[in-house]
């Protein structure tokens, strides 16, 4: 039953983020702010070669250096393969990584670890480690990786946890195939068939807080780790398994986190901190340098995506065939799941096709490993699909808006893909209970004045404005897999402690959980004390990924609040000598006929005087469906025809994410996603040299959008209500990032006639295209 948004007093109302003021005042404590004062400082010796076997390694000189506490190589650490991906159990990623190994598989891979009394001693010690490498032939072009004579994972002891198409002897981390109907037959029947191939790059997360962790033993000799992580509970499980410790010996605490975007779903320094502290008994810390974040953590999976689409003259799309090749780099973190989303969260947009096919491989190369990154798979697939849809529209002589309106998903419809494809496993059938995509397309067109402006407006002899669009969808958590939980405890005076595993990494989940609980218990957010993500103190949550927090953790919080409300009313009824159904509660006072009692009085009595007990509840939630948010996006791009340079003057989005629990934070998610997507579309160029050295490894050589590039963002939300969501909400964390590559590609084409098939869309590529057009 839908709740009228007009009656909501906290949810869907403007609420400042709970931590915003304190963070601006410098009072927020991030991981490294909480390291013990006398922590050993850990530094990692990293491989100078893209692929090599360690023939010998001599650490004796380093160990002798004054101030060095510990040096570890592959000979000193447990030889247990694991996945750093930070996923649930069993992981859909191959266990293909050792804490340290005798092979190094990319420039930056870990060779050895030093812990010393300070950073300078640790760095000096690294220089004293003597390594003799047998340099092997690297695979640096992912299109040649399959069955290459260089096998990147020749070692024993690596495995898949369930069938994912893992075939390391052929350099394959995962593979996948699916189809509905007969694609070839439908393409043959089509009046028009387009066949286009696109390439996407290895975007860097570039969160401002670098990967950080630190460890100490508490008075009971338990390992306590602060980590800048999105997945504290998965970390605890994976660390326990890999180091052979009971889960009870490990506590993970997530303090404030300085941005994640998927990059902090995974392990980075945590194993080294744990080993150092376990072996020395001393506190330790590891803070990645910016260069390490670029060159030795994770990137987005680069991909080649071929789209073949067939349509009839009237614009009806018959069939979509998508072949993809993904580069997972040296290790297979999220190899299969990212790959599948290229299909599962992209192709259902056009659900009226008679046939659809998706498949291909994820290959190993000797590049920086790829892992989770906001919108993973979806942004790559969206660029390929939504660019190809524009190409198809032109061939059909149709307005790109019209072909989308005709073929895209509508409310109460479905796609067979939902049931076939999940994340690494089978999916879940679902009907779109909320889908305002037609409204989003229409409203966005009004905001950009599409009918007047499309395809282009000439500004001068050398400047032209192009207009482009795309549509997108995401999901809301992974059904039957992602679980969140929430505990609520009543304090004397009537405030509530709310503990959640939901991992606030800056997106504001603490705030929106407070809003959900406050709305249900009819109080203000000031009365809700949220504490998140400490494996000792808070209930479980899968963590902040897969657009799950609002929907999964939010639903858990809502359920807990509903239960708390029922419980309070029941107990107040007993006090008043009435039946619960006759008692009303307005957040402060329980009333039944002429009798009243306040929450304040009851809460004090229960702790000190009568009916002594602690009122508390815990509830969990997992999704039975994953309702997608939808978006239509449009851009106005001004291109200089003489130089190929361009500026995005206005980026318009209309989003259906159900109820916006916090309208300002929802806008922050959408706009933050758009700007990261614009980075991938326009500026963020990843460059390696011929030996596999990453050249774009700092903020000067890897250009993320700044205030100079970003002009106007126009962001609106559709009036929508998802019946399975908390107060009608769906997710909003990833949807924003999906559209910019296709939208900018389409706008540049409409301005210039140049279609750019590789990201980023640089002035050089546009200029080259313009010159070719003149020939």
């Amino acid at each position, binding site marked *: 039953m839908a709740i009228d948004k007009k009656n909501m007093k906290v949810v869907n109302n403007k609420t*400042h*983020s709970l*931590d*915003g*003021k304190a*963070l*601006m*005042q*410098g*009072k*927020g*404590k*991030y991981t490294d*702010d909480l390291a013990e004062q006398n922590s050993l400082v850990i530094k990692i010796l990293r491989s100078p070669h893209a692929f090599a076997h360690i023939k010998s390694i001599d650490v004796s000189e380093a160990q002798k250096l004054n101030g060095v506490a510990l040096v570890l190589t592959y000979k000193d650490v447990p030889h247990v393969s694991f996945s750093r991906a930070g996923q649930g159990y069993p992981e859909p990623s191959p266990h293909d990584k050792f804490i340290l190994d005798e092979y190094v598989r990319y420039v930056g891979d870990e060779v050895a670890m030093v812990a010393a009394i300070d950073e300078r001693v640790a760095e000096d010690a690294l220089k004293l480690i003597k390594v003799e490498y047998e340099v092997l032939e690297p695979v640096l072009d992912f299109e040649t990786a399959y069955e290459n004579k260089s096998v990147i994972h020749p070692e024993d002891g690596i495995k898949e946890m369930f069938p994912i198409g893992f075939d390391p002897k052929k350099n394959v981390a995962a593979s996948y195939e699916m189809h509905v109907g007969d694609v070839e037959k439908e393409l043959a029947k089509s009046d028009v068939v387009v066949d286009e191939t696109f390439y996407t790059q290895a975007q860097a*997360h*570039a*969160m*401002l*807080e*670098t990967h950080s962790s630190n460890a100490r033993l508490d008075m009971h000799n338990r390992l306590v780790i602060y980590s800048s992580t999105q997945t504290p509970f998965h970390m605890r499980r994976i660390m326990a398994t890999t180091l052979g410790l009971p889960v009870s010996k490990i506590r993970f605490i997530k303090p*404030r*986190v*300085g*941005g994640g*975007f998927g990059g902090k779903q995974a392990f980075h320094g945590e194993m080294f901190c744990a080993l150092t502290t376990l072996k020395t008994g001393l506190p330790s810390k590891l803070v990645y*340098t*910016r260069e390490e974040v670029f060159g030795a953590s994770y990137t987005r999976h680069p991909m080649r995506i071929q789209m073949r689409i067939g349509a009839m003259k009237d614009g009806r799309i018959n069939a979509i065939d998508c072949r993809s090749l993904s580069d997972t780099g040296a290790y297979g973190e999220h190899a299969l799941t990212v790959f599948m989303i290229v299909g599962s969260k992209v192709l259902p947009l056009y659900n009226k096709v008679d046939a659809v096919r998706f498949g291909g491989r994820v290959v190993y190369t000797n590049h920086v490993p790829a892992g989770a990154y906001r919108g993973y798979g979806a942004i790559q697939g969206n660029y390929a699909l939504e660019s190809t849809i524009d190409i198809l529209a032109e061939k059909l002589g149709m307005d790109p808006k019209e072909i989308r309106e005709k073929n895209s998903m509508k409310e109460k419809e479905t796609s067979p893909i939902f049931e076939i494809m999940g994340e690494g496993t089978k999916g879940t059938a679902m009907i779109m209970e909320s889908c305002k995509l037609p409204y989003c397309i229409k409203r966005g067109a009004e905001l950009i004045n599409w009918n007047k402006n499309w395809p282009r407006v000439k500004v001068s002899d050398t400047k032209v404005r192009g207009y482009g669009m795309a549509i997108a969808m995401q999901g809301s958590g992974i059904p039957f897999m992602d679980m969140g939980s929430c505990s609520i405890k009543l304090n004397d005076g009537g405030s509530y402690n709310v503990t959640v595993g939901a991992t606030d*990494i*800056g*997106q*504001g989940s603490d705030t929106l959980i407070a809003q959900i609980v406050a709305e249900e218990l009819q109080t203000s957010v000031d009365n809700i004390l949220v504490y998140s993500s400490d494996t000792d103190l808070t209930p479980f949550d899968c963590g902040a990924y897969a657009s799950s927090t609002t929907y999964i953790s939010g639903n858990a919080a809502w359920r807990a609040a509903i239960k708390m409300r029922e419980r309070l009313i029941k107990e107040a009824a007993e006090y008043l000598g009435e039946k619960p159904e006759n008692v009303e509660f307005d957040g402060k006072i329980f009333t039944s006929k002429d009798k009243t009692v306040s929450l304040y009085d009851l809460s004090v009595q229960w702790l000190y005087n009568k009916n002594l007990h602690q009122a508390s509840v815990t509830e969990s939630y997992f999704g039975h469906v994953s309702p997608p948010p939808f978006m239509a996006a449009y851009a106005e791009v001004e291109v200089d025809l003489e130089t190929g340079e361009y500026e995005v003057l206005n980026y318009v989005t209309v989003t259906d994410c159900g109820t916006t629990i916090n*309208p*300002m*934070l*929802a*806008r*922050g998610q*959408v*706009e*933050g996603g*758009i*700007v*990261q997507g614009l980075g991938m579309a326009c500026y963020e160029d990843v460059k390696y040299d011929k030996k596999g050295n990453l050249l774009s490894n*700092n*903020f*000067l050589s890897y250009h*993320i*959008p*700044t*205030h*100079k590039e*970003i*002009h*106007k*963002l126009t*962001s609106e939300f559709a009036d929508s209500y998802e019946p399975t969501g908390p107060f009608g909400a769906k997710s909003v964390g990833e949807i924003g990032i999906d559209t910019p590559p296709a939208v900018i590609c389409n706008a540049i084409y409409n301005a210039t006639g140049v279609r750019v098939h590789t990201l980023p869309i640089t002035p050089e590529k546009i200029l080259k295209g313009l010159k070719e057009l003149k020939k």
Partner: protein
Amino acid sequence: MLVKFYLNDTLVSYDVRPDEYLSETLRSHGIKSVKVGCNESTCGSCTLLLEGKPVMSCSVLTASIENKHVTTIEGIQEEAAKIAYHFAEEGADQCGFCNVGYALVVYALKKNIKNPTDEQINDYIVGNLCRCSGLHSQLKAIKAYLKEE
């Protein structure tokens, strides 16, 4: 070596190495509000005011600031709260890691340039990277703060 400087108007004396940078000195003395995002003066997270002007403290040698005035966020708490209000109004705040640097640079902008144009604002804050927000919302928030009397 001993270096004396004014930290938020209080004279302090710290024993530092000659090759030590100001961000390192302050953090090692418990002033953890100084955030280090790149340690190579490219992200702006560690911004402080030196003699009232924004500098990236990861590239200022502590030995070079004898007798100078350093302002950290602790020195402008009320202004930071005002800036936070406008960031919240525009939905421009997220993880907060860059916010301390932003607050200091925006405060300095207000002190140093009267009625700046959008271009002047962007020029002033371009060195402060933010990966979470849409940036446009920050510009709106900054303009609202600058209008405050």
